[in-house]
Every structure is written in structure tokens, then in C-alpha cells.
């Protein structure tokens, strides 16, 4: 899925991105530089907390780090491996319900 971030349960209150009037006033980057920078993969890490609901098995460890550029699909595939679930075993993953 190309959709970006999923709201996390620990998202800060909606202050959004601060517009600091005192930000450095260098010359703006050219559009091609801006686009090239945005295309670069985000290598920062995101902390993912798993919580079992319904009759999902409890995990030994439930906090993991994942590279931000991964798709949500990677989280599901990881979870299936971790839980030793076969392809046919039903697994529902909900995001952001804190």
C-alpha cells in the first residue's frame, strides 16, 4: 500500500508541525532537489507495540523497531512469522487503537 503513516496511539496532541517564524532563511532548495530528497527512503525507525486482542496468542516480546520506509505489509508478515501462523490461519491486525 502506498499510504503513508498509520496514526499511532501515542501521537502527540494535534499541534501539527510548528511554523517557527525564526526558521533559517537560506535560499529555498530547487524543486528537483526537493523531489530527490523526498524520494530518498526514510531510514529512521518506528517503534511498534503489539497487543493481543480476541484470542490472539500473547507474545513474549511485544515491542519492536522497524524501519519507517517499510510497508504495513511487512508488519503483518513479521507478525505471522513470530506467531508461527500458517498462510491459512486468519490474522487481523488493527492499527492505532490505543
Amino acid at each position, binding site marked *: 500500500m502506498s*499510504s503513508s503513516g498509520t496514526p499511532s496511539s501515542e501521537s502527540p496532541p494535534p499541534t501539527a508541525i510548528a511554523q517557527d517564524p525564526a526558521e533559517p532563511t537560506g535560499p529555498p532548495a530547487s*524543486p528537483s532537489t526537493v523531489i530527490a530528497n523526498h524520494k530518498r527512503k526514510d531510514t529512521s525507525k518506528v517503534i511498534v507495540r503489539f497487543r493481543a486482542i480476541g484470542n490472539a496468542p500473547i507474545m513474549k516480546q511485544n515491542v519492536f523497531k522497524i524501519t519507517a520506509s517499510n510497508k504495513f505489509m511487512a508488519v503483518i508478515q513479521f507478525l505471522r512469522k513470530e506467531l508461527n501462523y500458517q498462510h491459512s490461519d486468519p490474522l487481523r491486525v488493527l492499527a492505532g487503537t490505543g
Partner: protein
Amino acid sequence: MHTTSENPVARVIWEGSIPIQFIWDPTETQGRILEPYFVEVPRCSYLSLITNQIRRDFAAKRLGFTSDEGEMWFDYQGIPLKWHYPIGLLFDIHVLQATSMKKEAELPLPWRVTVHSQNFPGEKLIKNPTLKSCQDYFMSMIKEADYLRNGSTKKVMNMSKSDQTQLWEGLWSKSYDQFWGMNQRLVSNDGTMARNLPVRIYLPENCPVIQDLVSPLDEYGGPRTLRQILHAAVPDLFPLVVVDAGLSSPVASVLIHGVRPSLETDAIWAAQTMAYPDNFLHLVVVLE
């Protein structure tokens, strides 16, 4: 409570449409050249919603042809089209944004889209583009929008099954009154201020989609403009203040439903009126 039926902007957006010429991939017709299928489709609709009528048309022209709905896919100039994006958004990204990059003036209308029934590009597109998958994706976008506005999906989840279905049915049957009769409650957040606005920003050249938390109000409690939202996401393309209007022409502008709105447009109004039926305000950035 049919306040939006009086909203001429929401209605014009709902009625926006694009003429498309569907061409069957010649390598999949055993050398036969099939007559293309012409159809005018709503900008707010999805490719998955018209797959069946295209399939029927091609099946009628080609004896003994069968193909699975879940195997059909579309491309424009070799780029697979995401079936889970609204058609108008696809057109704005792949035609208007792309031509602005190439500095081409002429609009290629009708939009020439190629149809495939084989070799589904599973690494580029979400699999199984059926009507049911499309409905699920559409509803999950509406829930995500609700989450951004309220920090929970209660508003959508507490809707009755028939009220939820009314959204999809309204879109499917192109009924403005049916869709907006229900959607108004969601986009207006029942009259309360949203925590965040559901906004997605699309830069050229297939950059990852930008989706940040977008507060409807600025730090002084005033309503934000589209310019402020775009500036927060890509400050180099959208300066907050135009230094000298005569000397520095803007480097970028934005498209919603194929039109360039003023960047001083109130973002709350835009999110309530110019969002796609999936409740997201999709902003397509074009370079000047």
C-alpha cells in the same frame, strides 16, 4: 439536515467526469485489434467500479473470452494504475502532474488507458482488485479520516450497517443526495472542530505520499490556509510569504479535482467541501 445539497462546490465536484478510451493490450488478444471502449466516468469513482462494464464490452467483441475480475488491471503509458485511488486523482497524478513536468501544453483527452487481464503486477498494485476489495479499501479510508479527525473511529463504527452502506451505494449509483446525505455528518464532524484534517500530498515523480498531522488551526487559533499546510510539508516549494510578487513567481501550485485552488483557501472549508468521497483532501503538487 441536507445542508450540502445547497453546496454548489460539492455538487460540481461530485459531477466532475473524465472521458476515457480503454484499449485492450494487443499482446493479450492473439493479434486481434479490438475496438476501444469509450466511457465517461465520474472523477470520484474507482476503476474497480467500471471493470465489469469494460469486461462485458470486451467479452461481447471477443468470442469465448473470459477473465477474472480479480485479474484485471490498467496502465497509462506503461505505469500500472492504482485501483484503490479515485479515478480523478489518478488522472491528476499521471496526466496533469506528469505533463506539467514535461511542460506539455496539450491535454491528452480522452485519456487512453490500456486494459490487461494477464500478468497482474502484484509487486506494484494491491492484489485482487474486485468490487468487494474496493469497498473495503474505501471504508478503511473513511475510518482513517475519522481517526484523524477524532482520535478514534467511533463515529464511523457507530453508524448502522445501512448508513455505512449508503456511502458506498451512493458512490456506486452516482447518487449525490444518497452519498452526501450521510457524508455531511462525517466531513463536518457533526459541527465540532476536528483534531486533524485528513490530507494527503502527492509530489511529482512517484515520491512517497506525504501524510502528516494537519491541525485545522494555526498557533494563534486562526484557521489554516492551504498554503500553510503545504508550507509545513514542503517549505521550499511553498513559501509562506511571497517576498516580491513581481519578481519571484511561484515555483509550485496544487491541484484538487483538476483545478488550481487559491493557496489562501481556508483548509477546513476545503477538507469539508473538496475532499474525495473517501473523506481525504488529496493535494497534487505541480511544478510551474
